[in-house]
Structure formats: structure tokens, C-alpha cells
């Protein structure tokens, strides 16, 4: 089966097209979309085994040879990210059923979620820089639809801003690709990695590298370019927010990781130091936001920005510890953010508001929810047995080994602020005097709570069993540190 690595893209696409035929039949929509996510998950697991056994998988579409056709490449990094994205989408579909509302479900909600998964999985798998652009557009189109879906007033307002920012950054992306193409004459990523070291004028390539950082920085919300994210992510309902917070910025982070390890390595002293400085500023900006707000959604949204900074700081070190730590933290962060948004969503539904000041005393009525939230918050901050710890430890170690030791100190210090911001939700919502709560049906409570608990459970396993997962992370890091493995797999030399 040489096409195995395409299945995580094709299965959701096929099911999304089928779902377009009967938008009004909600039960069928629910069953088929859940089945699509499960089928995708199974195919990703097979792909994971295949990549683990046989190394990097590559297929060039249409049987054309490698630099001429579109290559799809599945190395360990992309498989791990596709796996996390698929797990999250599966749980988002389950979480959507009780929360998203009949009206939204009737107007193509589930096809949009599946199309988003198509775009995300495609962006993680592609080995062609223009194809990456196309998959970015696929996931952005689906996200435009999801952000405005329902048509409430804040959604309409924020979707205009979101659309405007993304249209501009997409236009910049095309311009950057055009510059790269005019310098190198190729679009295939492996071929680019071969051609770029042969070019002697590194000046223009450094400019292009920074342009790509700006483009992907818009998508990933790095320091000066994150201004659109807090407002835009606050507008849509919780399941959509969980999907966005867990997946969309991470695609931008992945694109930075891929371009900055595979081909923009000609002037590391400039580009990667810039990346490191921006990463630290991103962390600080995120921390300020996370502490400033009394809104549960806003606090977690600013934590997305912090995590983006932490991951990029690890990548900027370009040593083994830094990159492996960043990859571990990336997978951990996708899962924990989805779990946190699920939990915060339940809290917001119970109180009927997302304002922390109007909450209190939930520990007496929902103790299990409280403890699960506490575990997730500790996981987010990186308390040792939980999943945030191994990644951050390696990133800090990478920083101390690299030139930017002061960055590691910032990462360590801001972990405390992350913990503070997450614990503040716990203190305000779960401790104190009970306030009036909205009665919630037991059945819909469990429908929301079970996906959240399972996701938290997965992150706990990821943290406690870090030894089990490290070989996978090692494999992913090895490909990033030795681009020749990637190039050989694609160009078959």
C-alpha cells in the first residue's frame, strides 16, 4: 500500500463530501462524522507503525518523479502531529453533539470540521511548499466557515478581522513562495533543501527566510503578529474554539519547524537568533495576557500564545535537546489545550458566564470536574509526572546548551506564571462560596465530561509514560537534525 500516507487526508475528505448530501438528518450526520474520525484514526495508527518500522514514507502524486510531481512525505514528526490532530478532532466531534446546538448541526457543521481535518492533515503531510499553501487555504476556508457559523454578532465582527488578517498573510505567503521559486527554481521541499546550500548569495535567502517567518508567524501567532488571535478565538463556541486552539496555530508552528530545519539553515546565526528572541517575546506577551483577564476563555487563549513561544524557543536552539523537547511539547500542547478548552467550556456552561468574578464553589457540586481540571492545569504548567514536564525540561536544557541561556531562565520563570493563570481559574471557580448555577442535565454533562476526561487521561499517560514515547520523538528529531534522511527518502538517491 504505497498510498497509505494519504489515507488520513482522503478519508475525512470522502466522508465530508458524503455528509453534504443530507444536512438535515442530524443523527446520520453525527454517526458518519464520528465514524470518519475513527476510520482516520485507525489509518493513522497503521501509518505510525509503518513509519516506525520502515522510516520516512514518501509518495509522489501521479507517478511523476520526485522534484516534478507533488510529493507527500510522512516522517515521524508529521505522523505524530496527524495522530494528535485526528484524536482531537474525534473528541471535538463527540463534544459538539451536546453543545453545538441543533441549528448549527443542520447547516453543514460536521462537514466543515472534517474539511478542517483534511487541511490540517494535508499541511502536516505535504512535501511541496506550494501544496502547503493550498492545504493552508483548505484549513483556513473551513475555519472561516466555523468561526462565523451561527452568525452571532461577536462572531460576525471577529470573523471579519480574522479573514482580513489571514487573506493578507496568505497573499504574503504567495509572494514569499514566488521569491523562493525565482531564486531556486523548484517548489519541492527536498529539492529546495538540496538547492539552497548550493546558492552562494545567502543575503536574499535570509530575506526570504524572514518573510516565511512573518507569514507563518501570522498563522502561529508569534509576538508582534498575534494581535488577531485573542479576539478571533473568543468569538466561536467552545468545540470550535478547542479545535482552533489545538490545531490551527500548531500548523503554523509546524511550518516554521519544517522550513527552519530543512532549508533555511544557511545563516543560523541571524535567522535562528531572531526566532529565539521573538519566541521569548511571545512568551512574555502571552503571560501578560493570561494574567490580565478575568475571563476563563481568554486565559486559556493567551496560554496558546505562551506555548507557541516555548515551542519556537526550543526549535531556535537547533540542538538535539531543544528540538526533541519542542516536538514533545508540541504534541503535549495540542492535547492539553483541547482538554482545557473542554473543561473550561463545561465550567462556563454550568455558571452561564465565562467571567471568573461571577463564579465560585463548584467543588461542592462537581468535585470530579474540579480534580480533573487541577490535573490538566498542573499538566499545562509542567509539574513533573505530567506531560508538560519532559518537553519543557528538554527545551530548557537545549537553551542552556545553546547560546541563549537567558531564554531558558525566562521559560522557567514564566512556567510559574502559567501555573498561576491556570490555578486562578481553579481558585475562583471551584473554591469560595457557591453561587447560583445553571442546572445541567446529567446526560449532557457526561457527554461533555467524558471526552474531556479521556483527553486529560491521554496527556497523563503521555507524561507518565514519557519513556515509551521518547523513541518516537527521537525518531522525529533525528529527521529534523539530519535533513539528508528526508532528502534521500524523497529523491530516492
Amino acid at each position, binding site marked *: 500500500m504505497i*498510498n497509505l500516507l494519504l489515507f488520513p487526508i482522503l478519508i475525512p475528505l470522502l466522508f465530508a463530501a458524503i455528509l453534504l448530501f443530507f444536512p438535515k438528518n442530524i443523527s446520520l450526520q453525527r454517526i458518519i462524522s464520528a465514524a470518519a474520525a475513527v476510520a482516520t484514526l485507525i489509518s493513522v495508527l497503521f501509518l505510525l507503525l509503518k513509519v516506525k518500522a520502515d522510516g520516512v514514507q514518501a509518495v509522489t502524486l501521479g507517478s511523476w518523479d520526485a522534484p516534478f510531481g507533488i510529493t507527500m512525505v510522512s516522517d515521524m514528526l508529521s505522523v505524530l502531529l496527524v495522530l494528535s490532530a485526528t484524536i482531537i478532532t474525534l473528541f471535538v466531534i463527540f463534544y459538539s453533539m451536546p453543545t453545538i446546538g441543533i441549528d448549527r448541526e443542520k447547516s453543514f457543521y460536521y462537514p466543515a470540521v472534517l474539511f478542517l481535518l483534511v487541511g490540517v492533515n494535508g499541511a502536516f503531510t505535504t512535501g511541496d511548499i506550494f501544496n502547503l499553501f493550498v492545504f493552508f487555504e483548505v484549513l483556513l476556508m473551513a475555519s472561516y466557515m466555523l468561526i462565523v457559523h451561527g452568525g452571532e454578532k461577536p462572531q460576525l465582527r471577529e470573523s471579519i478581522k480574522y479573514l482580513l488578517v489571514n487573506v493578507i498573510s496568505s497573499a504574503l505567503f504567495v509572494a514569499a513562495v514566488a521569491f523562493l521559486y525565482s531564486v531556486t527554481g523548484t517548489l519541492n521541499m527536498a529539492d529546495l533543501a538540496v538547492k539552497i546550500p548550493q546558492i552562494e548569495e545567502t543575503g536574499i535567502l535570509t530575506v526570504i527566510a524572514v518573510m516565511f517567518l512573518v507569514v507563518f508567524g501570522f498563522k502561529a501567532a508569534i509576538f508582534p503578529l498575534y494581535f488577531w488571535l485573542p479576539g478571533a478565538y473568543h468569538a466561536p463556541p467552545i468545540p470550535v474554539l478547542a479545535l482552533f486552539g489545538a490545531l490551527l496555530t500548531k500548523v503554523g508552528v509546524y511550518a516554521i519547524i519544517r522550513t527552519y530545519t530543512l532549508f533555511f539553515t544557511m545563516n543560523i546565526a541571524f535567522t535562528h537568533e531572531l526566532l529565539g528572541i521573538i519566541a521569548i517575546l511571545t512568551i512574555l506577551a502571552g503571560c501578560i495576557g493570561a494574567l490580565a483577564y478575568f475571563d476563563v476563555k481568554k486565559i486559556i487563549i493567551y496560554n496558546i500564545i505562551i506555548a507557541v513561544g516555548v515551542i519556537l524557543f526550543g526549535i531556535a536552539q537547533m540542538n538535539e535537546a531543544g528540538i526533541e523537547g519542542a516536538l514533545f511539547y508540541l504534541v503535549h500542547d495540542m492535547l492539553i489545550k483541547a482538554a482545557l478548552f473542554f473543561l473550561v467550556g463545561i465550567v462556563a456552561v454550568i455558571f452561564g458566564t465565562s467571567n471568573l468574578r461571577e463564579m465560585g464553589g463548584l467543588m461542592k457540586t462537581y468535585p470530579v470536574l474540579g480534580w480533573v481540571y487541577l490535573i490538566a492545569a498542573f499538566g499545562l504548567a509542567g509539574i513533573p509526572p505530567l506531560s508538560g514536564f519532559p518537553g519543557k525540561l528538554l527545551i530548557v536544557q537545549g537553551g542552556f546548551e545553546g547560546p541563549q541561556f537567558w531564554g531558558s531562565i525566562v521559560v522557567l520563570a514564566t512556567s510559574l506564571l502559567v501555573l498561576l493563570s491556570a490555578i486562578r481559574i481553579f481558585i475562583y471557580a471551584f473554591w469560595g462560596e457557591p453561587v447560583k448555577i445553571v442546572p445541567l442535565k446529567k446526560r449532557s454533562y457526561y457527554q461533555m465530561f467524558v471526552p474531556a476526561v479521556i483527553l486529560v487521561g491521554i496527556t497523563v499517560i503521555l507524561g507518565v509514560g514519557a519513556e515509551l514515547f521518547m523513541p518516537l520523538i527521537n525518531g522525529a528529531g533525528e529527521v529534523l537534525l539530519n535533513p539528508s534522511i528526508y532528502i534521500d527518502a524523497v529523491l530516492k538517491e
Partner: protein
Amino acid sequence: MRTNDVMLKTATKVVTFIILMFAVHIFFAGHYTPGGGFVGGLLTASAIVLLMLAYDIETVKKIIPVNYVMLTAIGLLIALSTAAASIFFNVPFFTHAYDYFDLPLFGKTSLHSAALFDLGVYLVVVGVTMTIIQTIGEDE
């Protein structure tokens, strides 16, 4: 409030068919000359838009009773299954098949699976364009 649009309606009756034939021509010419599914689809949509201008949306719905969202989905499925057929032959996705056939009327003709993919593109373009125009047009 169209009081006297006999000319428009009569001209439309003639012109629509010419546009539709031209769309089909462009669609089939796409492999060797400029054209293909995208322009073919846009031309077809423009023919339907001309009908909508001369008559009104309800009448056009009666003339062409098609659900355009479904048409888009069908187009997607055709394009996807054409590309995915290569999976069953264990060759890379999107590998296209072609051969020469002696057809009764056309003589020796080459038939490509790429044309089926183009048919999918054509249906998606018609479906999406008409969905946009119809929803905006019906909006009060």
C-alpha cells in the same frame, strides 16, 4: 417590474444554448487547447445566470430543478474517486490512465481519466457559483 422584456427573453432563448454548447466545447477541448473544467463550469454558470436575469429565480428553478449543493458534493466525489481509483491498482494517487479507442462517430480518440477529474471540477464550479448567486439573490 419588467414591463417589456420580449427582446431580452427571446435573445436569451437563443443565446443560452450557444453559451452552453460553447461551455461543452471548452470543457472537452481542455486537454489539448486552452480550456478545461474551470472555464467550462464558469461558462455554464453564466448561461444559467443569463436565464435568471431574463426570467426570475423561481422560473429558473423550474427549468433546471437541481440542488446546487448536491451538485458540488457529486463533483467532489467524482474528482476524488477518479483520483482514488489509482489506489486500487497500487500506483501513486492521482496516476492517470489513458488509451486510444475507435469510437463510432469520432474515429480514433484518446480517452483519459483526467477528463473525469475535470468533470468533477466542472460540477463543483457550477455548483459553487450557482449556490453563491442563488443564495445572494434569494436573500431579502
